[in-house]
């Protein structure tokens, strides 16, 4: 959170805003998603697929996943900036969290699309 850390990445203000905007988006999306998943407790595979085949569900789930992985990547980056000194290790860790977040977001969105489109 100290200024040298923010300067390290050169876009502290954008990071700050993105963290808050994704947080705002996640609050209603997570309330809906968690309530829906609890309602699906013990549901059959068919019921889960039927839920994802609803266009609103699929669209909201995709927005949720995108916001969630963006938000968690920003958070992990803040933690790394606070505890890891600048250097090859720091850079590798940042790159790794970005790649992992992007890959997980892409794979999970693909899974939602496959269910939504009946693939």
């Amino acid at each position: 959170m100290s200024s040298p850390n923010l300067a390290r990445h050169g876009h502290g203000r954008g990071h700050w805003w993105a963290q808050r905007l994704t947080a705002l988006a996640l609050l209603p999306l997570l309330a809906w998603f968690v309530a829906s998943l609890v309602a699906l407790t013990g549901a059959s595979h068919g019921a889960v697929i039927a839920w994802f085949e609803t266009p609103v569900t699929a669209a909201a789930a995709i927005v949720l996943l995108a916001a969630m992985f963006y938000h968690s990547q920003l958070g992990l980056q803040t933690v790394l900036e606070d505890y890891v000194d600048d250097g090859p290790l720091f850079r590798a860790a940042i790159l790794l969290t970005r790649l992992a977040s992007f890959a997980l977001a892409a794979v999970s969105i693909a899974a939602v699309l496959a269910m939504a489109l009946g693939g």
Partner: protein
Amino acid sequence: MGMRNRPVSPHLQIYRPQLTSILSILHRLTGVALAAGTALLVLWLIAAALGPGPFAIAQAVIASWIGRLLLFGWSFALFYHSVNGIRHLLWDVGLGYGLAAVYATGWAVLLISTALTLGAWSWGYAIMGAW
């Protein structure tokens, strides 16, 4: 960077633990735990997309005692991080900075996130017909 030996302010081991610092640390801990937990959500989504067989395996893993324990911890982390996140967003717009307010909202966050966790699990078990 030439800054390694600069003086640092008193840190965690100097201060007596208090609600404010513990909740702050908990926000970061739950955030990191949730980031790790997203991998499990991704696996569940992939299993569901692959078909009834893989989905049944995923459901069995979640229903196991270790699966339930992880899910319980993860659900509390999610509720805590979300409710305390609202507290952080209010601070961002300049609300709730008084010492009394910081403590009152801190206790409220603990109460609400615990109630939401227990409520969600009670609802889930009620659907399962366990009660």
